[in-house]
């Protein structure tokens, strides 16, 4: 008890001025908390979320094909589990991890739940809001699929396959998400996607595509060839000088100047292209900073052991450069994820923010001023995903041992 009192006195009430500040800000904080609490549990009318949950999550995806989404979720869970298990298996095979460490123990599971409790809690909340058993069944199956994958994966990772067979396995593995995309898209076409699913998909695609492009641009900007350097620098500076919103609008309008309407790609595809090219320019500058942080001695040592320039970059410089700028990279990718809402405003895509606005003018909710509720919900969704990305990046940073020199 006395330690609490000492702590309070030491940190909050040391001088008269401290006391005044503590009281004022304490009251303010209490008032804020009270208001928030009241909004969430008393005045907030959340029926609009409950009624429109499906629209918010998957947009106007046709009822008849929703099963496809469920299948996709379950297969993705299996895929992720297999991948995680496979990687563990490989690590055991190459001696980087003991078989005992790789096993899926209860401690490991609790650790995983602890790590991901915020997104898991959100999923649970969403499930509680649903009125049909479908999502519950999907979630349960996905959980089982992930576990099965994680348990089977290590065996796949441990077997030794001939080179062509492992390449085949790799191709099949990489093809699964692509196949799932076509499975989902054939029901409605890409432009029929909506809701938070669309935000996630736009972000995932753009992240995967912009990363290698960013690395290439960063390397190009430091290239010894003047022409390559010029092209990369011009590209980066041009893109970084234009507002993302303008680029999105342009992609919507200006593409017609170059491509006939019949050949024009779907609006969502255009959005992905813009996000990819835009973010790649920023990633390039971040990665360039990382490249500059690698000491000269590293390159000299790589040269001295006889590595070719490409291998010097690939094995020595890039791994260290990318590791050194993980926080800035993740920051940029989180930013990209949140910017997917701009695609709604600029291109009319029916993503989460657009849905949040649209549902307030439904006949049963019109004129009730429910925008605060729907926006809060949208913000929560974005926050949970962004915060999870941020936390996982910190973990990655620690695991790759930044600062262990």
């Amino acid at each position, binding site marked *: 008890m006395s330690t609490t009192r000492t702590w309070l006195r030491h940190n909050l009430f040391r001088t008269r001025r401290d006391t005044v500040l503590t009281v004022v800000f304490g009251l303010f904080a209490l008032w804020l908390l009270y208001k928030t609490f009241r909004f969430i549990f008393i005045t907030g009318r959340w029926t609009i979320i409950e009624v429109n949950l499906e629209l918010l999550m998957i947009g106007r995806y046709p009822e008849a094909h929703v099963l496809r989404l469920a299948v996709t979720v379950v297969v993705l869970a299996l895929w992720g589990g297999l991948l995680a298990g496979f990687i563990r298996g490989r690590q055991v095979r190459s001696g980087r991890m003991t078989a005992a460490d790789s096993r899926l123990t209860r401690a490991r599971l609790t650790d995983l739940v602890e790590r991901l409790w915020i997104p898991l809690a959100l999923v649970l909340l969403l499930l509680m809001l649903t009125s049909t058993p479908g999502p519950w069944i999907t979630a349960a199956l996905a959980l089982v699929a992930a576990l099965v994958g994680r348990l089977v994966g290590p065996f796949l990772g441990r077997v030794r396959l001939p080179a062509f067979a492992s390449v085949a396995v790799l191709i099949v593995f990489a093809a699964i998400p692509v196949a799932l995309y076509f499975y989902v898209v054939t029901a409605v076409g890409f432009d029929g996607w909506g809701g938070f699913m669309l935000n996630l998909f736009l972000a995932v695609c753009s992240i995967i595509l912009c990363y290698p492009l960013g690395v290439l641009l960063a390397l190009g900007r430091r290239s010894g060839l003047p022409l390559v350097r010029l092209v990369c620098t011009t590209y980066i500076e041009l893109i970084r000088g234009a507002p993302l919103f303008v680029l999105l609008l342009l992609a919507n309008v200006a593409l017609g100047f170059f491509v006939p309407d019949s050949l024009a790609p779907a609006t969502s595809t255009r959005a992905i292209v813009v996000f990819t090219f835009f973010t790649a320019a920023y990633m390039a500058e971040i990665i360039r900073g990382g490249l500059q942080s690698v000491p000269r*001695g590293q390159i000299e040592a790589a040269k001295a052991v006889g590595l070719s320039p490409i291998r010097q970059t690939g094995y020595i410089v890039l791994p260290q450069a990318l590791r050194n700028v993980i926080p800035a990279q993740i920051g940029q990718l989180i930013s990209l994820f949140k910017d997917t809402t701009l695609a709604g405003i600029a291109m009319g895509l029916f993503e989460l923010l657009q849905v949040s606005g649209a549902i307030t003018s439904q006949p049963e909710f019109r004129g009730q001023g429910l925008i605060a509720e729907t926006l809060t919900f949208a913000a929560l969704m974005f926050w949970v995903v962004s915060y999870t990305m941020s936390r996982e990046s910190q973990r990655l940073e620690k695991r790759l*041992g930044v600062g262990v020199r």
Partner: protein
Amino acid sequence: MTDEPTHETGVFDDATAMTGTRDVMIEIEHVDKFFGDFQALKDINLKVGAQEVVVVIGPSGSGKSTLIRCINRLEEHDGGRIVVDGTELSNDIRNIQEVRRETGMVFQSFNLFPHLTVLDNITLAPRKVRRMPKAKAEALGMELLEMVKIPEQAGKYPGQMSGGQQQRVAIARALAMNPKVMLFDEPTSALDPEMIGEVLDTMKELARSGMTMIVVTHEMGFAREVADRVVFMADGQIVEVGTPEHFFESPREDRTKLFLSQIL
């Protein structure tokens, strides 16, 4: 002055005379090197024979490091020619790669790859450059770690080791490419005093095994014990060359005497 090296007296008129009868491993002729307006190397001539150990000493800024960094093209020389085991260093990247494969280098600040384990540090080049199968490369790596007496550190990362251990790993890494020449650029200068011995012991063992070595160092004890020839450099020039006995006991040049009086 005579053209013949006078082994009996331990004095050499220039650095192109090797000790004993040997095949030439490194040939440096009239080499100049400029950093902007500053001339770091002035008309350097040096021949190093196979299995010879040459120790280069001199005050800081005398061009010792620049000289050995020119031998594997970490610095590009501006005039003259450098030939390593029959391959002349030119702007042809293939020649440069060829020379780098045949020369190992150990740096003052170790320059181990911090993101790779000790074993991966050693096996990377043999696997990627010599295309050695992984198992064979790792067997070789363990053998080299035995040689430098730290096999138990194979799975660690460089950041988890002491300076002396890191430098021994760096030596093992250089040896993994089975080089014909080893270049040492002040290998003990960044080490705590108690770790210098372990690194020097490794180098002595290497010298005894018949490795051709050029060592830039301030360790006079090492030079005395191991060197076939000692080369003294000052202001970008080779001032004096001699066997260790002669060099330390009865140096000829005033500049050499001054330097020795300052450090001994």
